[in-house]
């Protein structure tokens, strides 16, 4: 039976090792992404400092998580721990898993630091945050870096109603650090069949305050900026000026939708658009300059008899739950920079038939806002449309 020392010697004989100076050169050359540094230490060691750009997976989870983190088995990997022993065993395991270009950092992070080579200190989540977001941290596409990104993200929700309720709840639960909510209404009996962020005891309260209470009870990490006002040409610049990464549009009228669109194009902020009526909903993403905007899709609003609001036409209570959750999903992907967004695609959901359909949405070169020769260059307040937009100011 081999002693630990003998086993380590044997394993070191079977793997490739690299010294700190050579590893430093590889790091400098890795700007193009050729070499990936893999830190197999424990979390408390990682929190103290790492090789810049390294990814972290504790030795005990290496075999189970590496395929998700590094799918390419030909990727050049430099594995390190604190002194070079755990990383030697890790390198051997990686070789057995088919990773062909693995090197262990001899002397480990201790030697790296002793040489005065660059280190970075990860922005660490607190222990309660690690517990709260543990299911995100387990997903390679989110992980600790993604969670940090969400915590520093800012999403503006237009409306704390049917769509805004589920969207803001899921974004808050996900740890999006700042949620702005624009809504001038108070909670009414007729809202509670679907607007799940509010409750019976909040009847008569401003919706933004009711939403803030629910969100803060759900996740104290989230700061809510409440705008108890209707979005208009007068306040849109002030609200946009607070700086947002994504807008979630759950407005209940066309004038606001066009205002949100124009502001998003001029401020270069993507919009996750959702709308609902009776049993049917639509979702898409408008990303300025990269894809179509709302005016490319619907240059002209329909006449009022074709555009009844939910108040007139009704809506199945669960429908905004589905559409608003899809909006939250799109918003999270945009914030994390992962997946494929609904940009250029309008998703149509029919709750009665339980079908999803998709139609393509293209950028319109003649679009009055994002086209080649824009004709709309300042905010306009539309009145509730009568067979076409009428400008009141």
């Amino acid at each position: 039976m081999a002693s630990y020392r003998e086993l380590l010697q044997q394993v070191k004989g079977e793997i490739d090792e690299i010294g700190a100076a050579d590893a430093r050169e590889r790091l400098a050359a890795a700007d193009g992404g050729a070499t990936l540094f893999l830190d197999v230490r424990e979390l408390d060691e990682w929190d103290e400092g790492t090789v810049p750009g390294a990814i972290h997976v504790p030795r005990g989870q290496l075999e189970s998580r590496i395929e998700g983190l590094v799918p390419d088995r030909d990727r050049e990997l430099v594995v390190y721990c604190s002194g070079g022993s755990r990383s030697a065993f890790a390198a051997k395991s990686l070789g057995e898993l088919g990773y062909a270009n693995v090197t262990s950092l001899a002397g480990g992070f201790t030697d790296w630091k002793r040489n005065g080579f660059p280190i970075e200190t990860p922005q660490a989540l607190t222990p309660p945050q690690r517990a709260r977001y543990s299911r995100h941290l387990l997903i390679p596409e989110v992980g600790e870096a993604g969670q940090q990104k969400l915590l520093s993200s800012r999403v503006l929700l237009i409306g704390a109603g049917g769509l805004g309720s589920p969207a803001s709840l899921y974004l808050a639960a996900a740890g999006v650090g700042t949620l702005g909510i624009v809504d001038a209404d108070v909670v009414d009996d007729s809202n509670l069949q679907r607007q799940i962020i509010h409750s019976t005891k909040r009847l008569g309260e401003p919706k933004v305050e009711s939403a803030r209470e629910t969100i803060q009870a759900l996740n104290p990490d989230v700061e809510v900026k409440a705008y108890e006002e209707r979005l208009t040409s007068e306040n849109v610049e002030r609200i946009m000026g607070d700086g947002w990464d994504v807008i979630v549009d759950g407005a209940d009228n066309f004038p606001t939708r066009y205002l949100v669109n124009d502001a998003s194009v001029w401020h270069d902020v993507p919009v996750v658009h959702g709308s609902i009526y009776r049993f049917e909903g639509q979702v898409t993403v408008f990303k300025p300059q990269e894809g179509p905007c709302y005016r490319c899709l619907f240059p002209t609003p329909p006449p009022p008899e074709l555009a009844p609001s939910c108040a007139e036409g009704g809506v199945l209570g669960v429908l905004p739950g589905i559409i608003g959750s899809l909006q939250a999903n799109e918003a999270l992907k945009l914030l994390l920079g992962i997946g494929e967004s609904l940009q250029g695609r309008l998703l149509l959901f029919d709750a009665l038939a339980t079908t999803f359909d998709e139609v393509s949405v293209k950028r319109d070169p003649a679009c009055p806002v994002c086209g080649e020769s824009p004709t709309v260059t300042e905010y306009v307040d539309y009145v509730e449309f009568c067979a076409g937009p009428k400008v009141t100011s």
Partner: protein
Amino acid sequence: MTAVRIPPTLRGEVGGERQVEADGASVREVLEDLARRYPALESQLFEGGQLASFVNVYLGGEDVRTLDGLDTAVDGHSMILLPAMAGGS
């Protein structure tokens, strides 16, 4: 015959149907046939002989305005009529 998906806001004009059928080789012919079968639809689909600007028509998932407009050949595809919906609350 072309299957035409009717949006909820226009179903009153077609007896509440979610999908109806109409005949024609081009988008224009199909929509005109639709308007013949359901006269109340005409003013919702056409403005001065052209497709109303507030209605989007998709053929095989593509906006016909990005194809050949009303002259687009239907070619066995199904059609979706889609006006904008504003509701969110």
